[in-house]
């Protein structure tokens, strides 16, 4: 049985390798939510952008609205294709999958 898994990442890809590991091991078609410092990975114009664009071909990628707002990142500054969700959307993603994998 293959379960649907929501993958969350909370570390900046400029500091830790968690986002790379997530992209290596998440099943194509999975939903990935970037929270806390991981939202820096969704910023356009960084050295992560090509990796993120490749990932967007395989996954649906979200960032948590409160975390980008707090860090001065406007939605327009995100890599195109990255979606934003609020806390209620986070809950919907969690209950919409069979379980959650937190890449810490």
């Amino acid at each position, binding site marked *: 049985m293959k*379960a649907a898994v929501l993958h969350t990442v909370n570390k900046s890809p400029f500091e830790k*390798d968690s986002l790379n590991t997530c992209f290596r091991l998440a099943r194509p078609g999975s939903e990935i939510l970037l929270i806390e410092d991981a939202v820096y990975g969704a910023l356009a114009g960084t050295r992560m952008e090509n990796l993120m664009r490749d990932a967007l071909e395989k996954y649906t990628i979200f960032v948590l609205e409160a975390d980008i707002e707090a860090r001065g990142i406007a939605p327009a500054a995100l890599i195109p294709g990255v979606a934003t969700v609020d806390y209620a959307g986070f809950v919907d993603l969690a209950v919409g999958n069979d379980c959650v*994998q937190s*890449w810490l």
Partner: protein
Amino acid sequence: MASRRKILFINRRGPYGSVYAQEALEVALIGAAFEQEISLALIDDGVFLLRKGQDTRNLGMKQFSAAYRALGDFDVHRVYVERESLAARGMEEEDLVTIADGEGGNLVEIISSAGMSDVIHSHDILLNQ
């Protein structure tokens, strides 16, 4: 009576820089004692947990790979190790200790990233540290 669930403990940190791996091992053993199907996944620096030749006498800490041998006595299902994480750290299967499973086999199984992805997506509960 609760049903038997498949629980995967994902370890992505090495043994002595923090208490995470030690705590995860203890919780995994508790889970096995409660008759859940317990497996461990070693990814990224987690592969260092089973590196041969660990000697902690001068560090004054419990030797980790020895503690891992207890998994074989607690009917733990499997310890999965990602081959790509090993390779990235210059290691191969023979650099890891084996864990006797009580039936003449090795609890440790080296699998590809694709295999690890299947393992992650086929468990009921995923626990991280």
